[in-house]
C-alpha cells in the first residue's frame, strides 16, 4: 500500500526546515489537528444525524465563498506539521523511528495527489459537497466509498485504529508534557480565580504561608549547617515540587468539584440537599480524620523514636562530630518530613478522589500545624544541644510540646464537634418558606375551628381546670379562643413549662382570627358553608365505615308474636308512662293541695330502664347547669345576669322535679327517689346534683332518704357483706355500698353538719319509726354510718352549747335536749340487745379456707362499729354506760387479750385491735392498758 511509498528524504527536508524555524507560527496549531494523525478521534464519537433539514435551515449548496476558510489556509501547511510531529518523535526516540513510521501509515494519496483544502472547496462535483452537507461526518464519507477524495481521512480506518494513532501521537517529549502542564495550570488557575470562593483562596493562602514559613524557618536552620545545605536544598526542591503538584491537583479537583449555579441543578441536587450531603461528607471526613490522626500520632512517635536514637548516637559520637552527625544517624528530619509529605501525598491522592476535599483542607491544616510544632520541637532541640542543655530539660520540653499538640488537637476536636452539631441541627433550616408554613397552619387551624370549642374539647378543658384547681392555681385564662358567635378554637391543656416559642401561640391566634373573619365574610357573600373548600383538606378522620349503617348481624323481629307484651311494654313504656304520669301527677297535686296526703295513688315502682332514662335526663340537666355556672356573665351586665339566673333556676327546678323527692312517700315501695339511687350512676349523680339545690330542699331530701332508708338497696343487701367469700353478688354489694357511703352520704353531710338539734331528734325518731327494726338497720354499714353521723352531730351541738361558742335560747335548748334525750333513750333501749351483733366480726364466721389476712380485714371493718359505739358512749348517761360495758365486756376483753397474748397474725392486726378497743374505751374515759387479765 501507500505506506511502502514512504520517502525518507522528505523527512530530512522537513527536519531541516524545522531547524530553521520555519514552523514556529504553527506551534499552537495542535488544537486544530482534527484531520491529522494525532487527532484523538473524539469528533467521531459525536452523535450526528437528523441533518436532513440543514439545507432548509442554513441554505442549500450554492457557491460558497472562501473568506471563512481558515482551515484551508492552515492545511496548506499540513504536511509540514505532520513532518514536524514525526521529527519530534524522531528526536524523542530515534531508534524507534522506523516502527513509528510504519505504524503511522503515511497516506500515499497525499504524496500522489497533494490536494489542498482549497481544491476541495473548489471542487463543484456533488460528491465533494455531499459530505459537507451531511455535517462533515467522516464515517459518512467512508460509507459513500470515496476514501481517496477526502484528504482528511483517506483510509477506511476503524475508530479504534484511529485512536491507536492518537495514542501514538501522544507519545510526546518531556518538553511537550511540561508545556501542556503549564497551560493546564494556567487554565486551572484562571478558572479558579473566577470560580473559587474567597474563603477557599484564603485557606490556600494560609496554607501556602504556613508552608513557606515552615520552609523559611527550616532554611534559617540550614544556614547554620553549611555542610548539609546542598543536600537539603535538593530535598526542599523536591518538597516544593510536591507541594506544587498538590496544589495543582487540588485545583484540578476543585475544577471538577465546583457546583453549578443552583438554578441549573436538578431538584435532588438543590443547595438544600447539598447541605445534607455535606453533612454526610462531614461525617465521613470525621472518620477519616480520626484515622489520620491516629496515623499521625504513630508517625510522630516513630519520629520521636528516631530522634532519640539520633541523640543517643550523638552522645556516643560526642559534640565534635556535629557537622557530620547527621550522615550516619539514619534519615534526617528533612528526609522524614519529605517522607511524611509523601505519605500525605498518597493520602491526598487517595482522598482527592472522594468529594470530601474541602474538609480535607482543614485536616491538612491540622497536619501542618502538627508538622510545624514538630519542626519547632526539632529546632528547639538543636538549640538546646548547642547550649548543652540537659537531657531532662529536653524531655520536659518534648513533653510540653506533646501536651501542646494534644491540646491543640482537643481544641480542634471541640470546635469541629460544635460545628458539626450546629450543621446537624440546621440542616433542615428553611426547607419551608414562611408562607408554606402559614398555609399549612391555616389549613390545620381551619380544621380545628368549631362552633363550640368548649363543648368539642370538653374533656381537656375541664380536666385541665380540675388539675389546675388541684394544684392550687386559679383559673388564669380560658384555654379557648372565641370569636363572637361564629366559633372558636380550643387550645387544649396549658403547657407545663414555659413554652419554647411563646409568640407561636400569638401567631396562631392571629391566623385563626383571620380565618374566622374570612370565613364569616365568605359566608355573608355566599350564604353557604364557608369552609367547604377546606373541608377534608387534610384527609378525613372517618371513612365510609361510620356513615354506612353497620351490618346487621341479628335478624330479630321488632315485635315478635311470641312475646308481644314484653316488647310492647318496653317499646311504649315511656309514652304510656308519660301520659299516665301526667295524669297521676295532676291528680296527686290536686289531692295534696286539698291536704289529702294519706290518700295517694299507688304506683308500681320505677323499672330499671325508667330509672336509667331519668338518670340520663338528670345528667344532661346537671351538665347544662354546670356549664351555665361556668358561663356566668360578668357582674356589670345586669341584664345578662338576670337572664342567666333565670335559666339556672329553671334548670334547678327541673332537676328537683326529676329527683321525684316530692312524690308522696306511699306512692310506691321503693320510693321513686330511692329507685333513682339504685344504680351506682344514680348514687354518683347525687353529690353533683345536690350542689345546686338549696338548704330547705336538701332537708326535705334528707328526710325522705331517712324515711325510706330501709328501702335502699345497700341496706337490703347488707347481709351479703357478712361473708368473706368472693361472689359476684357480694362484690357488687360492696361496690354499691362504697358508692353510697362516698356519694350519697357525702352529699347529705353538709346538711347534717348544719342540722339543729330538734331536727336531729326528729330524724332519729323518724328513722326508728320507719325502720321498725333499728337493730337490723344498725347492722348495715350505711345505717351505722348514718346513725354515727347523727350522734356525732348531737355531740358537736352539745359541745358548742357547753363552751358557749354557740349562744342559744336556754329554754328552747333545754326543751330540745329533753326531746333528744327521750328519743336517744328509746334508741338505746332498742339497740341494747344488738350490741354484739353490730360487729361484722361477730356475724362473720371465720372459716378455715379464709386467708390469714381476713382476720385483719375483719378488724378493719369493725372499726366503724367501734366509732359508732364511741359516739353512743359519749352521749349516754352513766346507767347506759353500765349497760354498754356489760354487753361489750366480752368483745373488749377478747380484743385486748388476743392483742396482748399474741394470738394475732402480725403487729398490724394487734395494733388495729387495740386501736379499735381504745376508740370505744376512751369515750368512756378508760384505756385498754388499764385492763388487767
Amino acid at each position, binding site marked *: 500500500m501507500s505506506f511502502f511509498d514512504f520517502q525518507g528524504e522528505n523527512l530530512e527536508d522537513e527536519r531541516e526546515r524545522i531547524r530553521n524555524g520555519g514552523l514556529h507560527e504553527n506551534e499552537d496549531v495542535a488544537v486544530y489537528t482534527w484531520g491529522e494523525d494525532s487527532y484523538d478521534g473524539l469528533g467521531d464519537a459525536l452523535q450526528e444525524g437528523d441533518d436532513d433539514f440543514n439545507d432548509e435551515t442554513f441554505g442549500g449548496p450554492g457557491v460558497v465563498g472562501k473568506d471563512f476558510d481558515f482551515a484551508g489556509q492552515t492545511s496548506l501547511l499540513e504536511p509540514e506539521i505532520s513532518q514536524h510531529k514525526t521529527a519530534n518523535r524522531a528526536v524523542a526516540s530515534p531508534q524507534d523511528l522506523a516502527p513509528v513510521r510504519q505504524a503511522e501509515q503515511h497516506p500515499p494519496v497525499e504524496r500522489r495527489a497533494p490536494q489542498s483544502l482549497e481544491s476541495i472547496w473548489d471542487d463543484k462535483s456533488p460528491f465533494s459537497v455531499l459530505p459537507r452537507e451531511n455535517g462533515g461526518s467522516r464515517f459518512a464519507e467512508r460509507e459513500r466509498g470515496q476514501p481517496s477524495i477526502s484528504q482528511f481521512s483517506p483510509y477506511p480506518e476503524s475508530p479504534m485504529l484511529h485512536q491507536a494513532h492518537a495514542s501514538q501521537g501522544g507519545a510526546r517529549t518531556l518538553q511537550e508534557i511540561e508545556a501542556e502542564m503549564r497551560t493546564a495550570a494556567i487554565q486551572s488557575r484562571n478558572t479558579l480565580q473566577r470560580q473559587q470562593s474567597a474563603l477557599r483562596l484564603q485557606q490556600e493562602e494560609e496554607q501556602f504561608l504556613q508552608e513557606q514559613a515552615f520552609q523559611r524557618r527550616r532554611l534559617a536552620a540550614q544556614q547554620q549547617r553549611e555542610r548539609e545545605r546542598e543536600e537539603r536544598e535538593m530535598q526542599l526542591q523536591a518538597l516544593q515540587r510536591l507541594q506544587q503538584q498538590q496544589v495543582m491537583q487540588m485545583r484540578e479537583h476543585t475544577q471538577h468539584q465546583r457546583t453549578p449555579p443552583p438554578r441549573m441543578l436538578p431538584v435532588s441536587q438543590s443547595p438544600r440537599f447539598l447541605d445534607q450531603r455535606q453533612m454526610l461528607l462531614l461525617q465521613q471526613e470525621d472518620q477519616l480524620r480520626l484515622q489520620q490522626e491516629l496515623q499521625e500520632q504513630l508517625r510522630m512517635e516513630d519520629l520521636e523514636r528516631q530522634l532519640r536514637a539520633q541523640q543517643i548516637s550523638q552522645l556516643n559520637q560526642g559534640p565534635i562530630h556535629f557537622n557530620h552527625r547527621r550522615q550516619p544517624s539514619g534519615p534526617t528530619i528533612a528526609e522524614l518530613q519529605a517522607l511524611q509529605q509523601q505519605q500525605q501525598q498518597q493520602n491526598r491522592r487517595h482522598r482527592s478522589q472522594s468529594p470530601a476535599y474541602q474538609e480535607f483542607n482543614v485536616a491538612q491544616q491540622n497536619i501542618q500545624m502538627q508538622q510545624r510544632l514538630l519542626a519547632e520541637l526539632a529546632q528547639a532541640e538543636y538549640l538546646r544541644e548547642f547550649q548543652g542543655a540537659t537531657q531532662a530539660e529536653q524531655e520536659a520540653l518534648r513533653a510540653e510540646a506533646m501536651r501542646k499538640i494534644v491540646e491543640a488537637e482537643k481544641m480542634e476536636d471541640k470546635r469541629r464537634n460544635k460545628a458539626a452539631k450546629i450543621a446537624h441541627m440546621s440542616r433542615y433550616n428553611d426547607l419551608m418558606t414562611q408562607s408554606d408554613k402559614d398555609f399549612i397552619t391555616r389549613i390545620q387551624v381551619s*380544621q*380545628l*375551628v*368549631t*362552633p363550640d370549642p368548649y*363543648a*368539642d*374539647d*370538653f*374533656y*381537656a*378543658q*375541664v*380536666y*385541665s381546670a*380540675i*388539675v389546675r384547681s388541684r394544684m392550687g392555681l386559679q383559673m388564669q385564662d380560658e384555654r379557648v379562643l372565641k370569636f363572637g358567635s*361564629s*366559633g372558636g378554637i*380550643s387550645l*387544649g*391543656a396549658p403547657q*407545663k413549662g414555659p413554652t419554647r416559642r411563646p409568640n407561636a401561640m400569638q401567631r396562631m391566634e392571629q391566623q385563626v382570627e383571620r380565618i374566622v373573619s374570612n*370565613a364569616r365574610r365568605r359566608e355573608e357573600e355566599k350564604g353557604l*358553608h*364557608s*369552609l367547604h373548600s377546606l*373541608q*377534608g383538606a*387534610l*384527609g*378525613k*378522620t*372517618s371513612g365510609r365505615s*361510620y356513615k354506612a349503617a353497620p351490618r346487621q348481624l341479628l335478624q330479630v323481629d321488632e315485635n315478635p308474636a311470641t312475646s308481644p307484651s314484653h316488647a310492647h311494654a318496653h317499646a311504649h313504656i315511656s309514652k304510656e308512662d308519660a301520659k299516665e304520669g301526667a295524669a297521676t301527677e295532676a291528680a296527686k297535686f290536686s289531692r295534696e293541695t286539698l291536704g289529702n296526703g294519706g290518700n295517694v295513688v299507688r304506683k308500681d315502682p320505677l323499672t330499671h330502664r325508667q330509672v336509667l332514662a331519668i338518670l*340520663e335526663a338528670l*345528667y*344532661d340537666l346537671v*351538665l347544662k347547669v354546670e356549664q351555665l355556672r361556668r358561663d356566668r356573665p360578668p357582674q356589670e351586665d345586669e341584664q345578662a345576669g338576670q337572664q342567666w339566673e333565670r335559666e339556672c333556676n329553671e334548670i334547678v327546678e327541673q332537676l328537683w322535679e326529676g329527683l321525684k323527692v316530692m312524690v308522696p312517700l306511699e306512692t310506691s315501695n321503693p320510693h321513686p327517689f330511692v329507685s333513682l339511687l339504685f344504680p351506682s350512676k344514680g348514687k*354518683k349523680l347525687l353529690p353533683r346534683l345536690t350542689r345546686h339545690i338549696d338548704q330547705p330542699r336538701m332537708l326535705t331530701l334528707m328526710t325522705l332518704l331517712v324515711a325510706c332508708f330501709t328501702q335502699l338497696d345497700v341496706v337490703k343487701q347488707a347481709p351479703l357483706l357478712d361473708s368473706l367469700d368472693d361472689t359476684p353478688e357480694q362484690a357488687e354489694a360492696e361496690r354499691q355500698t362504697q358508692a353510697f357511703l362516698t356519694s350519697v352520704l357525702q352529699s347529705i353531710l353538709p346538711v347534717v353538719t348544719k342540722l339543729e338539734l330538734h331536727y336531729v331528734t326528729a330524724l332519729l325518731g323518724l328513722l326508728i319509726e320507719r325502720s321498725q327494726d333499728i337493730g337490723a338497720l344498725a347492722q348495715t354499714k350505711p345505717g351505722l354510718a348514718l346513725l354515727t353521723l347523727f350522734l356525732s352531730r348531737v355531740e358537736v351541738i352539745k359541745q358548742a352549747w357547753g363552751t358557749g361558742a354557740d349562744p342559744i335560747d336556754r329554754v328552747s335548748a333545754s326543751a330540745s335536749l329533753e326531746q333528744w334525750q327521750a328519743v336517744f333513750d328509746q334508741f338505746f333501749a332498742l339497740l341494747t340487745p344488738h350490741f354484739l351483733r353490730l360487729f361484722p366480726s361477730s356475724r362473720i364466721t371465720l372459716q378455715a379456707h379464709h386467708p390469714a389476712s381476713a382476720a385483719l380485714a375483719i378488724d378493719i371493718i369493725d372499726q366503724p362499729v367501734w366509732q359508732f359505739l364511741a359516739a353512743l358512749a359519749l352521749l349516754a348517761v352513766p346507767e347506759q354506760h353500765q349497760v354498754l360495758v356489760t354487753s361489750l365486756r366480752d368483745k373488749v376483753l377478747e380484743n385486748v387479750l388476743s392483742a396482748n397474748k399474741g394470738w394475732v397474725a402480725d403487729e398490724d392486726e394487734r395494733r388495729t385491735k387495740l386501736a379499735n378497743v381504745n376508740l370505744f374505751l376512751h369515750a368512756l374515759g378508760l384505756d385498754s392498758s388499764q385492763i388487767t387479765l
Partner: protein
Amino acid sequence: MRHNFCPLGSLIFSVFKTLTDQQVTVELKNDLSITGVLKSVDQFLNIRLDSIKVLDEARHPHMMAVKNCFIRGSVVRYVQLPSEHVDTQLLEDATRRGAPT
C-alpha cells in the same frame, strides 16, 4: 361551619391531649405494642411517642434501636391509658355531651 370529624373522635382527641407526657401503650394493627411517653396527638389521632419500648423485643429486634416514633392514627388498634390520669366521671360527662341530643 360543621366539621367532619365525629364528636367521639374529637372527644378521644380531647382526652389524649390531657395525656401528653404520660406513659401510654399503643397497640398497632400489626400486633406491635409500643410503650412510650405520649408527646403529642392531633385530630387524626396520629401519635408521637418518645423513649419507646416494644412489648416483645425478641420478636421485633428491628425496633430495639428506635427511641421515638410517629404513629399514623389509622394504624392504631388500641391505646392503653394510665387509669390514674383519666377522670372517668368527666369522661362520662364528655360522652354525654358529645352524644347527639
